[in-house]
């Protein structure tokens, strides 16, 4: 009998099929009933996937929703970018610069111009890529739709941009020709923006700050820092009459001129002043004094042999041992030194930019410990507490100092000899540069021994999270660093809630439908078995076992389910086509309102068949209880 098992495995389905064919009206009713459940569920699932996914992709997967924007401009270091870029969930991070430094003029064909924002981008920028634009390379840009419209260019055209700056009271500009490699869709924002590689943006910033961008042939300064001062002490052999005094500062950039006592002058300069000289203090409140101011006053006072000594207030240097000390600054030529009753200084007269960099980092160290004490800062002078001070000041390795400022500067001062005054004496330009470094970022390049202006640096960032779920985490992490950031947290949560709600709703309806469908199958198959009691009994009588007969309703259930699935998919296909056609106007070419992902078809089929099997189990159990001896005899 074992040899017939496989035969029976085919026989039962054949009998079931024969029964379904014979009772075709009943079969049709069952298929219609199940189709009435499955087809709407397929359409519902298709709509959920199509609509919600379309919305999701439009809204949720819009990179804008994954962006975390800093709300304040503040400096960020290269290290910070390296660190944050490595955080999990960070898909893209690029530095940005000061908004004002990233504005360029776009020159149209008719020579009219308008101002556009320049936004740095880099490889992998999701905002560009997900909006269908390539990431621009060297000399390439991507425009927003509005920017393209205003500038009248399209992909493939060349875009002329002009970068302008004001330097020394004159307006200057340079032009660049950039290739438009992409235009973003209107949906990607209505601002007039130009996306360009970070390197180009940095060049624009440099040029605007007055520097050259050698790579592009843009002229400008080298990045030497300029000295700035709190004021100038004017020393004259003859006093100025009040009228001359007032006229002297007109158009020099100084706002105030006041006669001061010798003591006051000595306090400002940290130098002894010969009694025969008359001292005036020239300054402008809250505004630094630069070389051009000094030149201007010098010109005004030509003939009176003015001695102009710039000063810097409250400048402290920190010694290697951590103690602060105050230097005096003086740069004068030999003749001027003589007028001050001082020996000449090795670095000579005032020069805003010194060819020989080492002249700047020089110092004359006081030998007189008493003088140090007199100066009131002696005990703070760092070296004084060192018993080897005398040997050290003459040593070639110099004096290591740190200047606290905007960025802390560490450098080595060469001691060129003894100070003629009680304070350590340094070139006034050094003090001026250190004063500038308190407001502006200045770096000391040890290799060249020069100070350099640092670029304004990175003042912001463009950060995109890898997925929506990463946004809240990154948001918290940046906030923990004390950064004010803005992210579409609420919108994300709203959309996620909407999506979650729609999914739950679908499953609720699906559950209801599946329950209904299963109930239909259970009842129908049970009734079918009941109607077929006699015939199933005969089949048993003819030599099939209970197990084989139990298989009969299961096979019927599967066949009905399979037929219903086929009809349902057909109905779904027809309806989906109608739905998609009728909404075609509101959809992008590759978008569909009703779309069933192919990955879901197998699960749907398997689930339906499984449920049909489960539903048939009741009927199968019923069929095993049929006793042939009870049913072969018509009562």
């Amino acid at each position, binding site marked *: *009998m074992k*040899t*017939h098992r496989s*035969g*029976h495995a085919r*026989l039962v389905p054949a*009998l079931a099929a*024969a*029964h379904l*064919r*014979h*009772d075709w009206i009943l079969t049709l009713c069952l298929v219609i009933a199940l189709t009435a459940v499955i087809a709407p569920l397929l359409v519902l699932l298709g709509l959920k996937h199509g609509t919600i996914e379309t919305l999701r992709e439009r809204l949720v997967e819009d990179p804008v929703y994954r962006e975390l924007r800093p709300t304040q401009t503040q400096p960020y270091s290269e290290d910070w970018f390296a660190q944050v870029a490595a955080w999990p969930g960070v898909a893209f991070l690029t530095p940005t610069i000061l908004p004002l430094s990233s504005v360029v003029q776009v020159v149209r064909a008719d020579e009219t111009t308008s101002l556009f924002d320049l936004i740095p981008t880099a490889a992998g920028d999701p905002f560009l890529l997900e909006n269908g634009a390539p990431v621009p390379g060297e000399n390439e840009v991507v425009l927003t739709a509005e920017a393209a419209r205003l500038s009248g260019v399209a992909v493939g055209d060349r875009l002329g941009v002009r970068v302008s700056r004001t330097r020394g009271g004159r307006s200057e500009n340079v032009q660049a020709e950039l290739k438009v490699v992409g235009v973003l869709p209107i949906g990607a924002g209505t601002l007039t923006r130009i996306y360009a590689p970070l390197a180009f943006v940095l060049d624009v910033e440099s040029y605007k700050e007055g520097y050259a961008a050698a790579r592009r042939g843009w002229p400008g300064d080298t990045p030497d820092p300029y000295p700035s001062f709190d004021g100038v002490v004017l020393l004259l052999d003859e006093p100025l009459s009040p009228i001359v005094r007032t006229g002297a500062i007109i158009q020099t950039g100084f706002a105030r001129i006041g006669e001061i006592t010798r003591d006051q002058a000595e306090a400002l300069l940290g130098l002894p002043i010969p009694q025969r000289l008359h001292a005036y203090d020239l300054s402008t409140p809250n505004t630094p004094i630069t070389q051009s101011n000094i030149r201007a006053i010098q010109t005004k006072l030509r003939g009176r042999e003015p001695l102009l000594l710039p000063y810097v207030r409250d400048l402290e240097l920190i010694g290697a041992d951590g103690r602060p000390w105050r230097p005096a600054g003086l740069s004068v030529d030999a003749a001027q030194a003589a007028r001050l009753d001082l020996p000449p200084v090795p670095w000579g007269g005032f020069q805003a930019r010194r060819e020989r960099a080492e002249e700047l980092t020089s110092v004359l160290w006081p030998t007189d410990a008493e003088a140090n004490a007199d100066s009131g800062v002696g005990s703070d002078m760092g070296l004084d507490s060192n018993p080897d001070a005398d040997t050290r000041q003459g040593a070639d390795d110099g004096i290591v100092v740190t200047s606290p400022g905007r960025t802390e500067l560490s450098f080595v001062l060469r001691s060129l000899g003894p100070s003629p005054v009680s304070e350590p004496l340094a070139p006034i330009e050094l003090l001026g540069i250190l004063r500038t470094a308190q407001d502006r970022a200045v770096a000391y390049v040890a290799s060249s021994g020069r100070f350099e202006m640092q670029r304004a640096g990175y003042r912001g960032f463009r950060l995109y999270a890898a997925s929506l779920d990463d946004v809240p985490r990154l948001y918290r992490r940046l906030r923990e660093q004390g950064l004010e950031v803005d992210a579409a947290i609420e919108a994300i949560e709203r959309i996620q809630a909407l999506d979650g709600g729609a999914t739950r709703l679908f499953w609720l309806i699906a559950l209801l439908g599946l329950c209904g469908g299963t109930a239909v199958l259970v009842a129908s198959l049970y009734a079918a078995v009941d109607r077929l009691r*006699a*015939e199933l009994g*005969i*089949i*048993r*009588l*003819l*030599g*099939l*076992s*209970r*197990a*084989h007969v139990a298989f009969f309703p299961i096979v019927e259930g599967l066949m009905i389910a399979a037929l219903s699935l086929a009809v349902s998919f057909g109905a779904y296909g027809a309806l989906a086509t109608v739905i998609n056609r009728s909404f075609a106007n509101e959809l992008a070419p590759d978008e569909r309102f009703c779309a069933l992902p192919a990955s879901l078809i197998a699960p749907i089929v398997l689930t339906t068949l499984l449920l049909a099997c489960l539903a048939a189990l009741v009927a199968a159990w019923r069929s095993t209880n049929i*006793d*042939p*001896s009870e049913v*072969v*005899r*018509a009562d």
Partner: protein
Amino acid sequence: MRDGQAPMVRMESIVKRRGQADSGFELRVPELRVDTGEVVALIGESGCGKSTLLDLIALILAPTSAVQFRLHLAGEGAGQDLAALWARGDEGALAALRREALGYIPQTGGLLSFLSVRENIRLPCRIKGVSLADRELETLAKRLGVAECLDRKPHALSIGQRQRVAILRAIAHGPRLLLADEPTAALDKPRARAVLADMNALACQQHLAVVVVTHDLDLLAEHVDRAYTFDLERLSESETRSTCRALDDAKRVIA
């Protein structure tokens, strides 16, 4: 066992009880045998348990107790201990015996409504796993006068035709034992006589043993080799007992 001497079906002291708590029916079979090629009639009034006995032999009803219940087919050694199979509840083995050795003609034909006549006749062959040539099927059908309705569904047949098809189906797969439960109950006498004659002719030709239940012995008196009848006893208001007893001379009784 020795050929010719071992009965095909042997029942000894078999009891079948059926019924609920308030009313019981007990069938006792002290001794019953069916030999190869024999036609055995089970005769009695309705309710005497003759159909119950037939279903016991047809292996679709379990005996309540059995001292001896064997089925011995030619060339099969010691035969099958049916009592043991029932005791074990070996559903598969019993089903196998049904499809291998038995043919059953139900009272009302018992054709499957959703299969054509031809498919109905072929069904036991398919279940058994043997083939039945179309020609052989048609020859048999011709003999029973149902050749023209082979491709119809059973509901399109007359009752007589259905019974003939049922007979055809019961023997198509080459069983050793044919069981018939009042196969002619629904037919008038001449027609019934003809159907029974056909059945007997086929059984004879194929050397089948036949057990036929009837309350109308004269219809087949001429064919019967052995007959059993039943003695009904009313034990109480609700208890009835029926004991199967061999009729010494069936043909004489009828006469």
